[in-house]
């Protein structure tokens, strides 16, 4: 076990070393400071801005920003939906795939435009190379960029600056962050052995003489943005467990770290943009500690294995069901916690097969949404929790609560509450409906407590815009496609609208100067209280469902 934890510690050390570098770089980008990429990126951006008619607009108002984000997302979603529906007549279709059902195409389009990439299909048998690389790959960049743009707008608003221009930040997120890192990362993955080809499936003759078709395709470039943009939609059905997506330990290390660098880095970016790097670091370490605790719970659970099997074996064996042996229990547990925490949603093992502690941890990740959190939005949620904590503790020191010198009043509480409220609505209500009609709707493969986890996980993954599946569900049905689409949209756009209005309102407030009567939010004490508030406000809501799912399962396994 020790060896496993050393492995985890090393990977985390790489994260701690790299995320702040990226965070500082992102701050430079969005503060408009010069970076070494200027020479290459600037001409490209000028071209894009000129071509699309984006003028150097100082800032949008909240309504303008929100409509820009929503309309552009809608247009992109419709565009991709149409490509998916007409993929049979479009090029790059070596296997001659026809159109999927309308509800699956709808769910897929919504799932990718919301940066979720929940997949009710297997890529290699459902979508053409053009659909995958052209349509879905396109959304992987733009949806991630939408998240980053919103986070930057939110940070700007909190720190009293105008929230900025959505289109400009969207373009910058792609040209300065997503595209360059993806280019380098894709090349590294190619080196590691990930294929990148437009040729159709390879035909091989097996040792036994049978003919086998091996699916392949333009995987490397797809794979890297899948992780970097916290998209998580695999080229192949089994995602990063597939040897062509994640062939070896090097690829696995790269993919694990790269799915966390942006949300972890954005916390540091916040610190710099707010002119208070210490606070950025405090929040970084708070999340890091919560993350570490969850990893420990999951890893110990996997290491101890299934007690029923251990009884038969007469010895303690780690749980290897649903795992790639090349990754083992350590790297699968670490990946599972990271991918659900960051809303990446790629998997390198079967989450359905995790031991109950693993199920508990992955579900908790999805419920909390801030263990690094979604691309951009996760960082913003962290600050929503910070604002709610400021409100409660601010009252406790006898002043109208202030965050970064701006008063938290009714409007802020309404908007923050909306974010707090939408998550249980988007998860618990459809879960209850589905479980009320288990035979007609659910499609549960593993009844009992585990079935509850399967259903709740699916909606939590949709609402948190994570996209990973507990799997084991027969989920390509009209009910699942449509009901999950509801959770996807509610979980994505309601918070984005609330965040932008919150930020814009904060930016317009008259700042209050700091005195010794001001509550400092950059102290260990306050950060610790925030962690407590996150657990109480975020997790207590979902405690009953956790108890009926993984907790009951764990107690019944002994």
């Amino acid at each position, binding site marked *: 076990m020790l060896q496993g934890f050393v492995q985890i510690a090393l990977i985390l050390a790489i994260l701690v070393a790299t995320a702040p570098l990226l965070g500082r770089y992102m701050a430079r980008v969005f503060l408009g400071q010069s970076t070494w990429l200027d020479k290459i990126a600037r001409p490209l951006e000028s071209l894009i801005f000129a071509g699309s008619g984006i003028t150097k607009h100082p800032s949008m108002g909240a309504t303008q920003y929100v409509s820009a984000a929503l309309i552009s997302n809608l247009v992109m979603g419709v565009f991709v939906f149409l490509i998916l529906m007409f993929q049979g007549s479009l090029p790059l279709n070596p296997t001659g795939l026809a159109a999927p059902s309308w509800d699956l195409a709808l769910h897929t389009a919504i799932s990718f435009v919301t940066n979720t990439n929940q997949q009710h299909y297997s890529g290699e048998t459902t979508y053409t190379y053009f659909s995958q690389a052209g349509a879905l790959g396109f959304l992987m960049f733009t949806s991630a960029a939408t998240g980053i743009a919103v986070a930057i707008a939110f940070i700007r608003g909190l720190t009293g600056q105008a929230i900025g221009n959505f289109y400009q930040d969207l373009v910058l997120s792609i040209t300065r962050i997503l595209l360059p890192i993806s280019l380098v990362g894709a090349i590294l993955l190619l080196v590691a052995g990930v294929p990148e080809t437009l040729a159709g499936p390879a035909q091989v003759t097996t040792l036994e003489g049978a003919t086998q078709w091996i699916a392949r395709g333009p995987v490397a470039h797809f794979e890297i943005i899948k992780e970097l943009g916290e998209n998580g939609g695999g080229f192949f059905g089994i995602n990063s467990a597939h040897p062509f997506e994640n062939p070896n330990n090097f690829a696995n290390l790269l993919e694990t770290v790269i799915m966390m660098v942006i949300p972890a880095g954005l916390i540091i970016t916040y610190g710099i943009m707010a002119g208070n790097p210490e606070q950025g670091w405090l929040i970084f370490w708070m999340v890091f500690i919560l993350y570490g605790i969850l990893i420990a719970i999951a890893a110990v659970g996997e290491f101890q294995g299934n007690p029923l099997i251990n009884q038969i074996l007469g010895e303690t064996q780690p749980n290897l069901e649903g795992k790639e042996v090349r990754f083992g229990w350590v790297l699968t547990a670490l990946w599972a916690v990271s991918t659900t925490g960051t809303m990446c949603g790629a998997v390198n093992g079967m989450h359905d097969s995790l031991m109950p502690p693993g199920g508990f941890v992955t579900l908790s990740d999805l419920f909390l949404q801030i263990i690094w959190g979604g691309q951009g939005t996760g960082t913003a949620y962290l600050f929503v929790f910070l604002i*709610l904590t400021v*409100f*409660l*503790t*601010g*009252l*406790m*020191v*006898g*002043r*109208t609560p202030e965050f970064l*010198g701006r008063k*938290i*009043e*009714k409007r802020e*509480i309404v908007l923050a*509450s909306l974010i*707090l*409220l939408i998550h*249980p609505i988007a998860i*618990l*209500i459809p*879960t*209850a*409906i*589905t*479980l*009320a009609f288990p035979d007609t709707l659910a499609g549960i493969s593993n009844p*009992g*407590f585990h079935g*509850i986890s399967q259903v*709740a996980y699916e909606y939590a993954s949709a609402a948190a815009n994570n996209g990973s599946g507990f799997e084991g569900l027969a989920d390509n049905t009209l009910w699942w496609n449509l009901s999950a689409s509801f959770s996807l949209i509610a979980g994505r756009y309601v918070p984005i609208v609330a965040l932008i209005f919150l930020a814009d309102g904060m930016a317009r407030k*008259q*700042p*209050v*100067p700091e*005195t*010794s*009567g*001001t*509550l*400092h939010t950059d*102290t260990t*004490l*306050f950060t610790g*209280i925030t962690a407590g508030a996150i657990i*109480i*406000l975020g997790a*207590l*809501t*979902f*405690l*009953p469902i956790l*108890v*009926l*799912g993984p*907790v*009951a399962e764990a*107690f*019944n396994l002994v």
Partner: protein
Amino acid sequence: MNSTSTVRQPGGPRQQRRHTPKANLSDLYQRAFKEAWVKLNPKIMVKNPVMFMVWVGTLITGMLTLNPNLFGVTGTSAMFNGLVTVILLFTVLFANFAEAVAEGRGKAQADALRSTQTQTYAQRILADGSLEMVSSTHLRKGDRIVVSVGDIIPADGEVLEGVASVDESAITGESAPVLKEPGSDVASSVTGGTRIISDELIIRVTADPGKGFIDRMIDLVEGAERSKTPNEIALTVLLAVLTLVFLIVVATLPPPANYIDSPVSITLLIALLVALIPTTIGGLLSAIGIAGMDRVAQFNVVATSGRAVEACGDINTLVLDKTGTITLGNRLAETFLPVNGHSLKEVAAIALAASIFDTTPEGKSIVRLAEKMGATLDFDRQQAEGVEFSARTRMSGTDLPDGSEVRKGAVDAIRGFVRSRGGKSPTGLDEAYGKVSHLGGTPLAVCRNDEIYGVIYLKDIIKPGIQERFNQLRRMGVRTVMLTGDNRITASVIAKEAGVDDFIAEATPEDKIQVIQQEQAAGKLVAMTGDGTNDAPALAQANVGLAMNSGTQAAKEAANMVDLDSDPTKLIDLVTIGKQLLITRGALTTFSLANDIAKYFAIIPAMFAGIGIGALNIMDLKSPQSAVLSALIYNALIIPALIPLALRGVKFRPLSADQLLQRNILVYGLGGIIVPFVAIKLIDLGISLL
């Protein structure tokens, strides 16, 4: 030198001041108990979303008591449902009781005030000059009335004619009568309910009946006019959202429970809901607000809105007048400094001669000091003539029978006087002036005809204990700015001695409003006190303007609070009250939310006793029924247990925000997690003994 003619000296140390008539609290609890039942009216309940939810739950469990199978799901007995119903009903009643007690105390306070305001008759002056006897309730703003000795003044008003003394003890508790006369800044306003004890006044009514200061105070403490304050609204929103979140949590629980064949009865669902929603703070929130207003009223301050009280807690800057607030109103002569080779005795004699007609406390203190030094009058007082102080000449004095003129006044003014008589400024005058200024005193020069004899050192007496209060304010993050008409040197010395953070010397009324605007431009909330008409714009501009009751009507109209005791230092107490109000809300909310952890651990294992999660019953509660009942009993009892805290307010300590947080999070956050575990376990032990 100006001799201030304050009508009444500001109150002394707090303990010595009497407060408003004592409220009658004898049957407070009986009345509140009755009121608690009246408040069960759904129309009233719906105003409080958290407790309304509990009330609806009570009704449903009530129905389930009569017929346990009403909704098809069995599982809990009529007996158990009945017990839950009773506990829930008491939860609602306790919350209503808390509010009723707070309101009752306010009402008692109001009744006491109202007793000063019995209906009276007034003589209204009609357009043709004749008088008409009308009931005070028929008076309108703008009416002119005559009041004579013995009358109760029927309404707030402004004196137009006459000079009379008025007994204001009914409002202020101060027994010394107050002189009222027209035109004067401070003495021209009268308050309804006070009694005129000499002479006659013609008064212009400035407030319609029911709109006067006393009425406003009554409305406020009774809660009739209580509109929610901004922070309270924000908190109510948060509590409503949390209630909604937990409603979703509980309402979506039956399908998964049924799915694993562990159906949950409606009664248990309601029990879980009530345990999770923030009933503790929900039940006490309005009581906290009402009690806050009540505390202000007990301090003898009339606030026009709860918003103003809450704003006190947010104040960043206090703008205070030096005289009367930081220093005692009167400066006293401390010593004489001779110049130009005169002896001390000579100076004393001239000072005595110049002050013999000066009746101000300062003038009297000069006379006392001079006499102590052995000075005597060398002329016949009857033959001499006093020269009064005027703002133009800035000096006063005496014209002696032999035709010589003795004067005392501001050093510049006396210098000018001497020059006009052909004299010149002696050597050593500047030195003496500087010396006094550096001591924080006010220098007055004295002269006889063309010769300056010396300087009187008038010492400003800083109020005892004021420095400690400013230190406290500084720790709370409140900056104090002193305004004074003194010269820069004197001002800086007083400022240093009193411990204020900043001062404006040689200030004019315009400076006041400028300081406030400057501070506000930097995002600060400013509080100030004032009494004069020329303070009115600044009082209106300030976020919290506290007018003195002795002040003019204009000042009182412009301010959002009026201090009936006319004690400017009260602003400091108001800051504390405002903070206390917020702290109490925040602390009880935190406590309420933290309690949820223990309640979960009590109810969830009991709810799903059949699915093998017994290990979650970490409190080792006896049975599922007793676990649920214990959690609910705790939930109900914690409300009355915290009523005293809600009414009294969490004790405020003048610490920095970070220290306060550390303290309060330990008590109410950590305490909120631990206390219910212990209490629920104890209640469960009690139940199992029965």
